[in-house]
Each structure stands twice: as C-alpha cells, then as structure tokens.
C-alpha cells in the first residue's frame, strides 16, 4: 500500500496522556524558597516520605504554603537540592557494611563540595537529617580525604581531636560542674557503658 492510499485517522490530542512533571516547594529556615522535582526528592528518604504522606496535587503545591525545612539554611539547602536534581533517578546505594567503604566522588559532586569546611559541615548535617545516602557518602569521603598524607600531629589539628589527657581533663571538669546527684547519674551511666553500652565519641 502506498503512502498516498493509507487511511487517515483523526487523532484526539487531548486523549494522549502528557507526563507532567511535578515540582514541590520547600522553604529553608531563612525563608529561601526552592522548587524541586518529584524525581529529585526521591533521593531524600525523609522528604520522599513527607510528600507521600502529604499527598499533594499539582494545585496543592501551588496554592498551599511551601513545605518548611526548619533546621537547614538556604545556602545549605541550595546545595542539597542541586545535588538531588543532578542525581535524580539514580539508584540509592545500599550499605553492604564493607570496610573500608569504597566511595568515588564524581566531578559534579567535587565541584559542588568545593566549599569552606563550615558549609561542608552543614551539608553533612543536612544530608544526614534528610537521609540522602549518597550525598552523605560523598561528603563524608571528602572529610576522610582531609587525612590523606597527614602525620598524626597534623591529623589531630585537622580534625581538632583531643589527646587522652585532654579527654580526661574535660571529663573531670564536666564532673566537677555537676551537682552530686548528677555526678551519681553520670557514674551510673559510665558503669552501664562498661557493662556493654555503646558510644562513639
């Protein structure tokens, strides 16, 4: 059959489903607003659960107030959402418990994290709070890389780590500042720790 003889079919364009991207609005604690795609939000377990629970429609997103993220500032949240948009649709890594954890920092992430350590510190807190696994991995790797080629003395200065003597002195000072009952509770806590409790720092 030639092209000229092919049957003509009328197409109702309205009937074709158009995939509409949904964007959510978020507000930082310093009142900066961000529009973030639904797919990008999936990188954050916390936000993903939140928007699922809210069940917003496109209209709700426009008409209702932006979702407030009260403990993250605008500068940090901007980095977080830039990262989420760049990595949207990527699989979220599952921690298999292997040590050392092999983490490569992609070029985009390296540029994004070319920031001062104060902001990096906030970024890690934000990634942890919003439960963005891979952002947490790469930002922690960036901190680990600060140890590269460092001697013990240099590393102590980089991470501001106290010596055993300083740890002891801080502990004594804290005990002395407490009232006798509080000290008792502290001693009880220490005893429990010795009997199998766990603490990192």
């Amino acid at each position: 059959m030639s092209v000229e003889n092919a049957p003509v079919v009328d197409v109702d364009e309205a009937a074709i489903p158009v995939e509409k991207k949904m964007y959510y609005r978020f507000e930082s604690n310093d009142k900066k607003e961000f529009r973030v795609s639904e797919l990008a939000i999936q990188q954050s377990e916390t936000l993903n659960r939140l928007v699922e629970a809210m069940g917003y429609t496109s209209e709700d997103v426009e008409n209702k107030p932006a979702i407030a993220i009260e403990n993250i500032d605008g500068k940090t949240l901007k980095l977080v959402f830039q990262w989420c948009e760049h990595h949207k649709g990527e699989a979220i890594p599952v921690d298999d418990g292997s040590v050392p954890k092999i983490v490569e920092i992609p070029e985009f992430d390296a540029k994004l994290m070319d920031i001062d350590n104060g902001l990096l510190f906030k970024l890690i807190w934000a990634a942890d709070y919003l439960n963005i696994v891979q952002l947490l991995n790469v930002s922690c790797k960036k901190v680990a890389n600060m140890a590269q080629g460092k001697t013990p003395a240099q590393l102590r200065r980089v991470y501001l780590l106290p010596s055993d003597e300083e740890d002891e002195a801080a502990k004594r000072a804290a005990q002395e500042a407490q009232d006798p009952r509080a000290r008792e509770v502290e001693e009880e806590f220490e005893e429990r720790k010795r009997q199998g409790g766990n603490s990192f720092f």
Partner: protein
Amino acid sequence: MNIQRFPLTQLPVQCAKNVLQTMSPLQLVVYSLLSKKCKNQANSLKTPTKPMTVHFARGLVFTIYIQQDILRIGFYESRIQEEDKKQLSTPKKVSLAIQRGGRFVEKCIYSTNRHEVKEWVETLLFIFPESHDIWMNFVDQGFRFNLDPIKEIFPNIHKLSIAHTGNYAFNQSVLQKFLPVEDVTIQMDSFEHSRISHKFLIQDFTFTGVSVKVFPRITLNELLINNRESRIHGGVDFHRKDGTEATINISNRPGRKYFGIMVWHDHCVG
C-alpha cells in the same frame, strides 16, 4: 603550612563513623594513634583483614592485606638508627603506604614518631583483630635485630619463614627462639653446609616448606626424621628400608623451579 580544620567530633555519631569507614587503612592507622577513643572507634569498624606479615630485613616491615590493598608500615629503613633497631624501641622515622595492583597509591612518611614498635604492634592488632595470626619472616640482613625484644613483642607467632639473614648463628637462634610454631618454611642455605639440626626437625609442625637454593646438602635421613604433616600433589613415590614413604616433586616452570621431598609419616596419611 595552612591546614584546613574540620570538627569531626561534632558530627552526628553515624556521620563520624561514615567518615572513618571511608578512610583508607593507612588513614585509619594514623587516626587510631591519636588517642584511646580514636583507637576504640577504629576497632569498632571491624575491618576485615588477612593475617599480619612481619619482615625482618635491613629494616622492619609490617604488611597487612585489606581488601584489594596492602597496607605497608616500615621502620628502620634508613641506614642510621642501628642501635635503636636492635632493641625495637622508638623508631623516629615511620613510612606508611598503601599498595594496590603493584603500585603505591598512598604514602605517608614522617620522622616525629613517638610510639615504640610494641605500641605499633598492639595498635595494629587491636584495630585489625583479624590480623592476629602473625607470619614472621627473616630475610637478608635480618640478623641486625636482637631476638629478645622480638620475642617479647611477638610471644606467639603462627608462621615462621627463614631465609639466609647473613649470619648462620642468628638463623639458628631464630629457630631456637621461635619453635615450635604451627608452620615453618626454611630456606636450606640459611644453615651452614645446608644442615638443620635434628632437634629442630623432630618438632611437631603442621607443615614445613623446605625451600632449596643452589646445591642442597640435606640428607634423606634428615628429611625422613622430620615429624611434620604435609600436603602434596603429584610427584614420584619411593620407600626407605623401614617402609617410610616419601615423594619427590620437581617443578621446572619458568619462575617457579623447585625440588621438593615430602616424607609421609603415619600421621601424615589420612
């Protein structure tokens, strides 16, 4: 030098742990030297490793396999510090490196070390508990070390290898000091006229690798007297008058030429 600072202890616990988990083994070792707390944190990661190998040569080198990497820590590798070296006290210079695929991917060398070798060993075995089965090697120039402090630091070793250290008496002393161990490899030219005293061979090892260089002068009787357990594949079998069976195995592959005799005592045959 402008060093950037990061308040690691102020991160949430899980984040700080994540930082340590992504550190290389070299970085983790340096970190663990900073305080008891740091050492405990490094230990809590439970890093899987292979046993630690300790090499006594001109210097002292520890190696530990960790995933695809080899962690290498070297002491006394310069020609000075000879007196310190013999006693294994506090070597000033330490070199740490990570070797991957035959090349060094990370290095850290410093001359301000304050830890004794004993402390290094304790720290390494504490943060890498799976490396406890020590494999000790004595090779060329290893005779420069004093065996008493070595024995004090490594009272129990799992595996011992001796090549010629450059001093026959020292080689003999190594056997006296460290046998019995579960697993021994001896290079025959480590002993004068390539003869190992019967009193060493009679001991009960799990496995003895006898590696032969140049012209071995070990007699068949000396080999037959060795009271060890062995595993071997292939080779030619023969018997002594008393019925003791032995197997000769020869490899002529390039880069792996050897001549081996394995003697099968009753306890060797399962």
